[in-house]
């Protein structure tokens, strides 16, 4: 019975190693942070990274150590923020809901195609080929990389431009990372002006490329009483923290590229 000896030897060595490890894990146990565990249980577990930490366990550990504030978890929203605040003992936490906004209105009606693109149906691939088929080199290519990246079905391609359903958006930021043109940015959901254009071209070029592009005429900047709009590189930009949502810029815009976000 030669086979018995090797089995016994390997078995005994394995058993010894197992016993030593088991004893070691008891003797040298490190007390785990109970707070971190409780926080991790509350978090959605999506590991999306929207909070800026490496997944939910990382964020929970940072919160337990007091390095991070509750309320950074956008998929969890106010409910999770409140639960986290309760566990940390800091009471309820006010949380500003954010959503992704697409800064382009270059639909098929507003832009033209400078070529017939017949390649892979992906914005990333298309943008490598001379910046994509759209007449505007900054504009939405409408091939839906953002929609594919969205886990919540909040993005749809309508008539060649991506549209975000704010009520479904949890502001995880995956679409913003997926867009090769950088057209998607996260902003608070509140009544405010949104410049639906990202073109830094000069006015004349924008006019040629798109019916609704921002030409940098400065009218919005001049009319804004809150000083929330600045025109930089021939493109108007709204500071969400200053915008009061009065809507005067939207009325003044000759290109109708500023729209008002209604908020909740």
């Amino acid at each position: 019975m030669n086979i018995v000896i090797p089995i016994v030897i390997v078995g005994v060595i394995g058993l010894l190693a197992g016993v030593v490890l088991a004893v070691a894990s008891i003797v040298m146990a490190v007390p785990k942070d109970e707070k971190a565990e409780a926080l991790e249980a509350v978090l959605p577990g999506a590991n999306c990274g929207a909070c800026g930490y490496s997944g939910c366990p990382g964020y929970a550990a940072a919160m337990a150590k007091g390095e991070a504030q509750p309320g950074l978890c956008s998929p969890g929203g106010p409910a999770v923020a409140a639960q986290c605040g309760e566990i940390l003992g800091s009471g309820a936490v006010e949380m500003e809901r954010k959503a992704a906004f697409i800064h382009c209105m270059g639909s098929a009606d507003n832009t033209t195609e400078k070529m017939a693109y017949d390649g892979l149906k992906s914005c990333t691939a298309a943008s490598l080929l001379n910046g994509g088929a759209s007449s505007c080199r900054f504009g939405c290519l409408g091939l839906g990389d953002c929609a594919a990246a969205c886990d919540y079905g909040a993005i749809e391609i309508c008539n060649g431009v991506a549209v975000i359903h704010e009520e479904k958006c949890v502001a995880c930021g995956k679409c913003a990372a997926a867009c090769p043109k950088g057209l998607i940015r996260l902003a608070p959901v509140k009544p405010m002006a949104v410049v639906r254009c990202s073109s830094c071209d000069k006015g004349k070029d924008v006019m040629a490329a798109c019916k609704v592009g921002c030409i940098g005429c400065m009218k919005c900047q001049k009319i804004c009483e809150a000083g929330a709009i600045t025109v930089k590189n021939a493109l108007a930009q709204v500071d969400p923290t200053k915008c009061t949502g009065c809507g005067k810029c939207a009325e003044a815009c000759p290109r109708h590229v500023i729209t008002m976000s209604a908020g909740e």
Partner: protein
Amino acid sequence: MDAQMIRSLVAIFLAAILTENYVLNKFLGICPFLGVSKKLDTALGMSCAVTVVMVIATAVTWPIYTYILVSNGLEYLQTLVFILVIAALVQLLETALKKYMPPLYNSLGIYLPLITTNCAVLGVTMLVLEKGAADPSFGYVQSLVNAFGSGIGFLVAMLLFAGVRERLEDCDIPEMFRGLPITLVAASLVAVSFLGFNGVVDRLAG
């Protein structure tokens, strides 16, 4: 320990670093060599962990092989048993570090568990037995010195290569060579340069 012995130990140590370098000469442990050599400090951390594990693993596997496996005629089981022992050791080391040296544990991070599957560690423990079979004077002490030297050799290779890669970052590399291709080319050049050490150790110690 007489002068002759010390001399032979130094020769073993230097040979393990230069002429028998596990990464650049035997091509073991290429995965961490390519994967963890992007930055100098992580390369240093990984190499130190590998060195420690190599010495401890040899210290345990050598007696197991010599006194348990050989005496029962079970040399063919060495791969299986060694993997088992190394995995358990790394796990034990991790638990101990977590308890007694948290800063070191945190700085090593993911590299410690990764060593479990590092073939350089398994290679050091197994190839040293071949040497012992060829030369009866190659005993326990020599094996330990060889393991330590191999670890230092790994460290030297990692640090050299990390330095090369940090310099590569600033170079204008043709697009088709960017990333892994140029890394492999650089690795092969570093390996070729180590061939220049052939014979050096024999002369030094002989």
